């Protein structure tokens, strides 16, 4: 079979349009920059009858042209996607094939945006996000990968080949190569080519999103639990506790991260069980957090308190011990938990990555929470809670924490981005995840060796990583901007 071109028959029509609209956008942008230096912006003129009119001026007109050009570019891109979904690889080439493969993601995105847009006034801060273009773009990028991870990881959709499977003759083949010896049931092409072990780059990229989406948000969440549980008392009590905790946080922050990771994955260190002990400590924080949260809220009603606390602790402890206990561990301590209650094991490698990511992120979260607490604890409603005899933990978790949520949500988005990059970095250094893992960092590292000859195995996951992190940053920007306005 003929190898696929990038845009296929569709490209004959759409490629020139895209070229023209992109050129128009570049030209108008350049003119706009020049014009803004030399001419005044738009001016409001008041008519004698009390109405106001806007005189656009030169830069106003250029700005309008720029907007039209941008819309043209966007419209062409949408045309690629929609047409590609219909005609697939046979008419749309590589992009058509990918557009068709991502069909469930496109449909979910459209449904989500239409629904959110319709009800945006009733959805609080989330709804306000749809007033900011930046925020919407960011949210769109992030949700693209969330849906991709969901459909690929849970429903086994989207990816075209086994991400770990090798097909002879496909080694380092360029994008669009037809599959060697394809059966009728097989997808007939490697859409984005093959890597140096003859695996499908497209499928690995899609499947890699599942791993990234599993580890990064969870690790960030755990880092937040640790940072919050320590940051609140440090800010609230101050004094020696604050001094000691802040000192420890600074100590961790000052330690070179990569060196720390190298130390943690060194076989000798792993043998001592240090990562497992760290996991045992770090994973305890969410439990403590939830326990204190419930206890402080319902302390005046012991029956309710006992019920909620009991259920949470039972479930929490089950998960906790399943997580840290390992029946195959060489250390006796970690085999204490009975096997039938050990619901799942996570591989040692993943555990180490998880622990190290939480460990290096929590000090920063700690500092943010501590600073916010210092500010909020001077408010009158905190004094009011004190004067009616509330416990310190109630004040910290129910009076202070909810009012610190704005900056924390923004930081959460940004931090998922950092964590994603960190995972990539770890994978790149060959630390952490197993070498055949399709996650983006490891894949980039694999592809790097033949980068000058076969760039596609490294570039594809790199672009994926870029778009996700960009999306998270834009989302955080949008949230911050919109939460400041009213």
């Amino acid at each position, binding site marked *: 079979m003929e190898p696929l071109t990038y845009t296929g028959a569709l490209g004959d029509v759409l490629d020139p349009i895209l070229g023209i609209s992109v050129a128009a956008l570049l030209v108008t942008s350049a003119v706009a920059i020049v014009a803004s230096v030399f001419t005044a912006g738009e001016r*409001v003129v008041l008519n004698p009858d*009390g109405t106001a009119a806007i005189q656009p001026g030169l830069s106003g007109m250029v700005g309008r042209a720029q907007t039209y050009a941008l819309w043209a570019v966007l419209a062409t891109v949408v045309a690629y996607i929609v047409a590609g979904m219909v005609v697939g690889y046979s008419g749309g080439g590589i992009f058509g094939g990918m557009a068709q493969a991502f069909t469930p993601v496109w449909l979910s995105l459209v449904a989500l945006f239409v629904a959110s847009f319709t009800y945006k006034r009733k959805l609080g801060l989330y709804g306000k996000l749809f007033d900011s273009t930046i925020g919407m773009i960011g949210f769109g990028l992030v949700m693209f990968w969330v849906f991709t991870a969901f459909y690929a990881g849970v429903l086994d959709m989207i990816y075209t080949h086994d991400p770990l499977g090798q097909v002879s003759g496909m080694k380092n083949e360029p994008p669009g190569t037809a599959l060697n010896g394809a059966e009728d049931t097989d997808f007939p092409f490697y859409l984005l080519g093959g890597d140096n072990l003859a695996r499908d780059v497209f499928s690995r990229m899609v499947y890699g999103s599942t791993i990234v989406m599993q580890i990064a948000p969870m690790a960030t969440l755990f880092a937040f639990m640790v940072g919050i549980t320590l940051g609140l008392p440090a800010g609230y009590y101050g004094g020696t506790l604050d001094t000691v905790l802040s000192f420890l946080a600074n100590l961790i922050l000052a330690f070179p991260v990569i060196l720390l990771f190298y130390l943690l994955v060194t076989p000798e260190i792993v043998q001592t069980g240090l990562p497992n002990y760290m996991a045992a400590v770090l994973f305890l924080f969410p439990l403590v957090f939830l326990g204190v949260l419930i206890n402080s809220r319902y302390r005046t009603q012991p029956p309710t308190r006992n019920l909620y606390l009991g259920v949470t602790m039972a479930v929490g402890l089950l998960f906790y011990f399943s997580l840290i206990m390992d029946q195959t561990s060489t250390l006796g301590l970690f085999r204490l938990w009975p096997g039938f209650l050990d619901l799942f094991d996570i591989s040692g490698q993943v555990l180490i990555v998880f622990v190290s990511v939480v460990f290096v992120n929590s000090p920063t979260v700690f500092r943010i929470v501590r600073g916010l607490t210092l500010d909020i604890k001077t408010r009158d409603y905190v004094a009011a809670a004190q*004067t*009616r*005899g509330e416990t310190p933990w109630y004040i910290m978790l129910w009076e202070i924490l*909810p009012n610190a949520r704005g900056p924390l949500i923004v930081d959460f988005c940004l931090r998922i981005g950092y964590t994603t990059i960190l995972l990539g970095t770890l994978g790149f250094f060959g630390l952490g995840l197993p070498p055949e893992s399709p996650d983006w960092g490891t894949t980039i590292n694999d592809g790097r060796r033949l980068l000058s000859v076969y760039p596609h195995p490294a570039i594809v996951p790199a672009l994926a990583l870029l778009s996700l992190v960009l999306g998270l940053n834009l989302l955080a920007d949008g949230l911050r901007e919109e939460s400041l306005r009213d």
Partner: protein
Amino acid sequence: MKLTTDHQGPILEINQLSISFFTRLREIPAVMDFSVDVQPGEAVGLVGESGCGKSTVALGVMQDLGKNGRIVGGSIKFKGRDLSELSAEDLRDIRGNEIAMIYQEPMASLNPAMRIGKQLMEVPMLHDNASEKEAYDLALQVVTDVKLPDPQRMLDSYPHQLSGGQQQRIVIAMALMSKPALLILDEPTTALDVTVEAGIVSLVKDLGKKYGTSMLFISHNLGLVLETCDRVCVMYSGEAVEDGAIAEVFDNMRHPYTQALFRSIPLPGADKTARPLIAIPGNFPLPHERPPGCNFGPRCDYFEAGRCDQGAIPMADAGPGHHSRCLRFEEIDWAAPPANTEQPPANPPGDPVLRVEGLKKYYQVAANALFGGGQEKVVKANETLDFVAHESETLAIVGESGCGKSTLAKVLMGLETATDGTITMGNRDIQSTPIEARGTKQVSEIQMVFQNPFDTLNPSMTVGRQIIRALEVFDYGANDRERRERMLQLLDLVKLPREFADRMPRQLSGGQKQRVGIARAFAGDARIVVADEPVSALDVSVQAAVTDLLMEIQREHKTTLLFISHDLSIVRYLSDRIMVMYLGHVVEMGQTDDVFSPPYHPYTEALLSAVPIADTSVQKKHIVLEGDIPSAMDPPSGCPFQTRCRWKDQVPGDLCETEVPQMKNFGTHQIKCHLSEEILGRMEPVIEIHDSGAAAALAENTA
């Protein structure tokens, strides 16, 4: 460079100005059909409640309305030139040079990283191309003019090294550096203590005369406007409702809003039982929910349906230079006494419930917290306090910032424990029982109402939930249903609709939030309520309503109210006894009438003189205290007030510097001063009410 030098006629002419802000939902008109002229050398006051558009007018004059604001009608002419037609460069020349502005928060107007001198010198160097030497000389002269001690040292210091009052003087000096033709003062003293405020006000008045500057004085405080301005313009919900000469507007008001405003502020003569305040019913309309016709219509006593709600109402002449935006001002009998003033029953104080003896609270401040060492300093926040509070009595605690009143509240609440002395509540000593060690009943018996309505409620919890939480903590009720029922009753008690239970605090106005705060304090049937400036952050019309609510609940529940305030007008109105504090000491204590009439403690005397009173018939003695309140870290030796006292030379020897005076008893009235009884007896009253309308009405009422 000054743009225009020889202009005749008004400095500022604002003609039918309308300003709107554009949000993503709608256009919000902030100012509508607003006209005012400022003549050379004249001071014009702009009064109104928050949200009435007075600051927007000032920003409009500065042409600084931000991205969303826009002038949608009318014109602003400065020295005959229309400001909206000027280019950005011309505007830059005018701002800070010909029109200067002074804001509320002095620290926010000064660059914290620049020495005072540099900041002042920038003005002439930027606008007049002055040399560094000329600029320095001018700065030195202006700083001397604003009566700051040691001007050279001042120029060399950074803003944070100065006190709030000194900072505001520097801001004024900066505004005067370019000898502006117009000075806009936006609530210039709201962030300052009363005695400091009095100093600033008299300074502004003197400087206005000396430099011949016209002033636009924006304030919510009618008393302050009376003291500073020649003419006044009253604003309500984006419109000027009345303007005219000060005496005209204050004595012969011709708009129902102005009248209602004056009836809701505690003037001398008002009394909580004999002549209670009359709150303005209803709420300030939101800018996009203004009623048709007269904006004040729905809250007005003289409202006539079919007439007042039919389209816009123009300003009409109500005498020479006096205008009113009321259709009915000619029909209304302005001299008639307020209708339906029911007199609530008097409330005699009962048995003592709180007894404080020899209370001391010292704080240890170490120089270095981590490694110890350094010199330990002792801050004496409270120094031997003795007082008794009775059942259903209002005891006012008066003093300025740093006098120790908040520390006293903390010790009473159990957030701090006393260093020495006893506090007896009921029959138990609680001075060294921190709040964690107090029983539920003990905690619920003494509760607090806080000052800042925007801070008193947790912004992320519904109103009902916050009250229910207090009930939970105080062990009220057996289940959630009972507590919810009780919460609704508490909302009834503070006169809030029951639907408010499910609202978030941001959906409530300041006064409504304060009511929720009161409901929360009374959740556990408190016997003692410490109210820390509960109304000082509220608008005047709302103040009256909240004050009356507190009084009413007090009458019903026989609560003891410890009312902390710096506002002597409101204290005079509602308290039975007053305790004046200065730097941790009680300097004077007695029945309200005793404290307000001589003999005074010298500090009380200054405090009484400093409080602006919005009544033209009141004649005040003019006493301005020198300097600032000393730091509690480093209090003066001997009498705490000796550094600022104007009677000090009447005391023989250096008694004031060396010895803390003993309390002198005058019946129920106590004064802590070294002055001999004979000199104290010779003191004259600070506030005198001249025989005129108000006094006559008062006499009539009491007869």
